[in-house]
């Protein structure tokens, strides 16, 4: 394998690697005919990212003939090659990536100014192919926005926030912080942002829905998207199905596939994945966007405000909305808590509650080399903690 990246693309490559380091500890590298794929997955397999650099991204792109080559290495080691991002642009003229099959080393050579040559010989391990199973084209909902919009949105959430909830209706999108521990409900600060559809480049909502996923991983993608200025597309279905965040241009395709929190209240009972009948959500109280009326609504004995009405975790019919508002709020949140296995252990990583993504761990056939794959595939790997829950298609 012998690839050369020149000029500004070196920084793009470096940013991609830094972005992948927000997902997992290992970098999976696979030179394919359609480009160089850099992938990473987190330990609980609930987040996956893939950067596919087409051959045009490189000034030279030669891949090994014959059997496919795949390897993985500690991502920190590769990050060390591209240490100071800010000086990369100014000092690095080109980056040469070569495979030394005999010595099992991947060599990154940076040609810098002043004639300085930085050579990094990294050892790697052979690995199986890492591909997530998803089909973004079939998703019911799709949003596309300039990265600046999303960056400005997530800026309102504290860096420590684990999960964010995104709810869509025909005209609007709500971003909320997700607080799942009942004990914290009364103490937590709840933040909610509403964006209207015209702030998006593309807004296609098939069904009113709400998903909750890990914010840290979204931020990892946004950092990359913002530096390249490319719009971010979001493809999702109902909660429980993974959300695909995508950034594309002519030489590069990035896909972040993140698991979303599933609707728990009925899942264990019904043990299937069909959509539950929901009571139609109350009218959109944000029509007037009047914060005062919203506050008044919260304080009176009437139903709680819009955020309540559009809570992602719609209660099952048993939890009616006729109970007093403060109690209703708690019940709404509790609805999903009851089915949770362990709520007392707040130290457990949030990924435990997410469905794991299912990966094809066998070599894909040629037609499946790209990430736009596969509507159905047998489950081959799953998070052992999800054994009690249904399997996804």
């Amino acid at each position, binding site marked *: 394998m012998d690839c050369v990246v020149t000029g500004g693309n070196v920084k793009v490559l470096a940013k991609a690697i830094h972005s992948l380091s927000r997902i997992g500890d290992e970098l999976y590298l696979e030179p394919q005919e359609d480009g160089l794929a850099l992938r990473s997955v987190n330990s609980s397999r609930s987040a996956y990212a893939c950067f596919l650099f087409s051959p045009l991204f490189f000034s030279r792109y030669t891949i090994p003939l014959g059997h496919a080559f795949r390897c993985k*290495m500690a991502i920190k080691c590769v990050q060390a090659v591209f*240490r100071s991002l800010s000086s990369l642009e100014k000092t690095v003229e080109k980056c040469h990536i070569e495979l030394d099959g005999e010595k099992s080393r991947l060599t990154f050579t940076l040609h810098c100014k002043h004639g300085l040559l930085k050579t990094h010989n990294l*050892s790697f391990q052979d690995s199986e192919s890492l591909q997530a199973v998803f089909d973004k084209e079939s998703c019911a909902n799709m949003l596309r926005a300039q990265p600046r919009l999303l960056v400005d949105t997530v800026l309102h959430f504290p860096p420590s926030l684990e999960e964010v909830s995104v709810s869509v209706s025909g005209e609007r999108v709500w971003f909320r912080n997700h607080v799942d521990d009942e004990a914290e409900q009364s103490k937590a600060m709840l933040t909610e942002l509403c964006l209207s559809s015209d702030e998006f480049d593309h807004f296609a909502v098939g069904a009113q829905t709400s998903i909750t996923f890990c914010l840290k991983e979204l931020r990892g993608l946004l950092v990359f998207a913002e530096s390249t200025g490319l719009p971010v597309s979001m493809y999702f279905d109902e909660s429980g199905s993974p959300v695909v965040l995508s950034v594309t241009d002519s030489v590069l395709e990035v896909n972040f596939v993140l698991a979303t929190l599933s609707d728990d209240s009925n899942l264990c009972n019904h043990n299937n994945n069909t959509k539950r009948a929901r009571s139609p959500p109350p009218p959109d109280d944000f029509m007037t966007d009047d914060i005062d009326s919203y506050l008044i609504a919260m304080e009176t004995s009437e139903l709680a405000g819009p955020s309540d009405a559009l809570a992602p975790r719609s209660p099952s019919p048993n939890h009616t909305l006729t109970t007093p508002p403060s109690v209703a709020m708690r019940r709404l949140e509790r609805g999903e808590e009851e089915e949770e296995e362990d709520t007392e252990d707040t130290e457990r990583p949030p990924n435990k509650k997410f469905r794991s993504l299912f990966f094809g761990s066998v070599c894909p056939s040629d037609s499946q080399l790209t990430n736009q794959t596969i509507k159905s595939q047998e489950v081959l790997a799953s998070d052992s903690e999800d054994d009690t829950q249904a399997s996804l298609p």
Partner: protein
Amino acid sequence: MPLSTQSQTEGDNYVLVASLDNVRNLSNILKAITFKDHAIFNATPNGLKVTVEDSKCLQANAFIQAEIFQEFTIKEDSVGFQVNLTVLLDCLTIFGGSTVPGVATALRMCYNGYGYPLTLFLEEGGVVTVCKINTQEPEEPIDFEFCSTDVTNKVILQSESLKEAFSELDMTSEVLQITMSPSQPYFRLSTFGNSGNAHYDYPKDSDIMELFQCTKTQTNRYKMSLLKPSTKALALSCKVSVRTDSRGFLSLQYLVRNDDGQICFVEYYCCPDEEVEEE
């Protein structure tokens, strides 16, 4: 060591008096060699030399010429003492490290001689602080016997690029290997860390290479932990000379410009780690 019982009034008992309008011209240089607590001071009519050593394998020297000082009076040919360098630096920076333009801390350093403490008078904005630091018998600095006639390879580089290289060095590597050669790779810094090895090559015709005199291909390894402190001196410097002798001993000499643009020198001597076969 007996504490000085001399009164605070000025006397003629000082064997060494050195004054600076801006104490940073001394403290900054000393920070570049502070990797051990104790430093050996040696003053001669030429100026001040401060030496710090580590495990008999590494020696750092800072030279501040007499011309740098606003006043430098020495009554003997050579005045030597040893002090705790960390304490000395704490005193020199007692007014804080801020660099507000126009505001400088002035220093008057006085020493009575053997057995007496080192007295520092520091003044900023009308406030005076007096510090007395106990001195000890100065140890004899190691003579690395590094002589310029035995130098096999010498390069002088502009520090900027080397600073970047040193800041990126793989710290999981126990050694830093330096290869100097009249042929490829000319001047190479190598590390051998957990993830693999890395090489930083500077060609002899690079525009940052001010001097390139290599007579023989030499590869030597030095303990990373010993060389790490030298990065402080590198950070302050604008040029560095790298020399190795026939035994593989390393001499790094840093040209440092102080706040007033005056030149001082810092040098590091380091023993090689072991014999290395040519790779």
